[in-house]
């Protein structure tokens, strides 16, 4: 079981196993793997706690029940799974500023946290507008050869590549 302690596996093996996992998800749960719904549910649940039952009447929240269900335990599972993997390989590390960020934008934890919040808002908004994320569209949808998902995935990476180049090349010079 030594391989469980490896810090990294071949991307092809990881990809293959994710593909197999996706098939299991379809077989046993009649659905694909998607992560962004869980965040929308969490926001609805929190809003309901603050503002009461009328939140349930919001048109968007009528699309799904506001409770912790399959999608939610999936994302919770990801946290646990990554924790186990990083513990087994000894790569678990409490870190606020990633290496690459540190090299380009310096040591400023407050800046990194604000930028993470902002980036997260865009990701959450964009994922819900596009109807899915890198897993729901990028793996589950593309595997089914869904038209929407191939388009969405191309635009995820197009937007990502353009923004990363602006941030790291133009932003790095300034």
């Amino acid at each position: 079981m030594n391989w469980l302690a490896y810090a990294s596996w071949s991307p092809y093996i990881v990809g293959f196993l994710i593909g197999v996992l996706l098939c299991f998800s379809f077989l046993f749960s009649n659905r694909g793997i998607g992560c962004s719904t869980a965040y929308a549910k969490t926001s609805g649940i929190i809003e309901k706690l603050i503002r009461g039952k009328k939140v349930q009447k919001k048109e968007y929240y009528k699309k799904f029940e506001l409770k912790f269900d399959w999608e939610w335990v999936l994302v919770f599972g990801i946290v646990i799974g990554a924790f186990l993997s990083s513990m087994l390989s000894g790569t678990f590390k409490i870190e606020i500023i990633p290496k690459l960020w540190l090299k380009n934008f310096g040591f400023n934890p407050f800046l990194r946290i604000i930028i993470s919040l902002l980036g997260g808002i865009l990701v959450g908004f964009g994922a819900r507008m596009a109807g899915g994320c890198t897993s729901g569209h990028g793996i589950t949808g593309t595997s089914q050869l869904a038209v929407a998902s191939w388009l969405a995935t191309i635009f995820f990476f197009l937007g990502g590549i353009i923004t990363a180049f602006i941030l790291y090349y133009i932003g790095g010079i300034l």
Partner: protein
Amino acid sequence: MLSQIRKKKYLQLLIGFLIGITFGFLLQKGNVTEYNVIINQLLLKDFTMFKIILSAILTGMIGIHTLKKLGYIDLKPKPSYIKTILIGGLIFGAGFAILGYCPGTVAGAFGSGSIDAFFGMIGLILGAGIFASIYPKVKNKYMKKGLGKVTILDITNTHPLSSLSIFTISIIIILYLLEILGK
């Protein structure tokens, strides 16, 4: 047997949790829970993320379409609203590069100890909430016309096997090229 399993509520939660644990484990072993790996992918310097996604699609595509053909599963393609997919996709992409994680990998990054990922997750909840508030407007403006829940197999007139073969061969060629170019 399968329909029995799919109906059991608590068993389903357990299955979802186990799939999540496995997925998070794999993302971490694939190193895509690391900010550096994702940003270097977007800067086109390290192709780990493309390799993982493409081999997942290759395996998933063959597996899912085989299971469908055998009658074990139904496909669940998402509806195609071109405008929201393009605008939402680009906004997602911008956030993806700014945060350095996507909705799945951000959870894995948090599990591996990244504190910035935790704030990213809070941002994601806020962003999803903002979208929920303006959803009626977006729906009226951009979601009137759509192609519906279609797959590439539905809109091409060829035999499904030929489309699947084209995708299989293309993905293998792209992976091969990435492997050569990466050296």
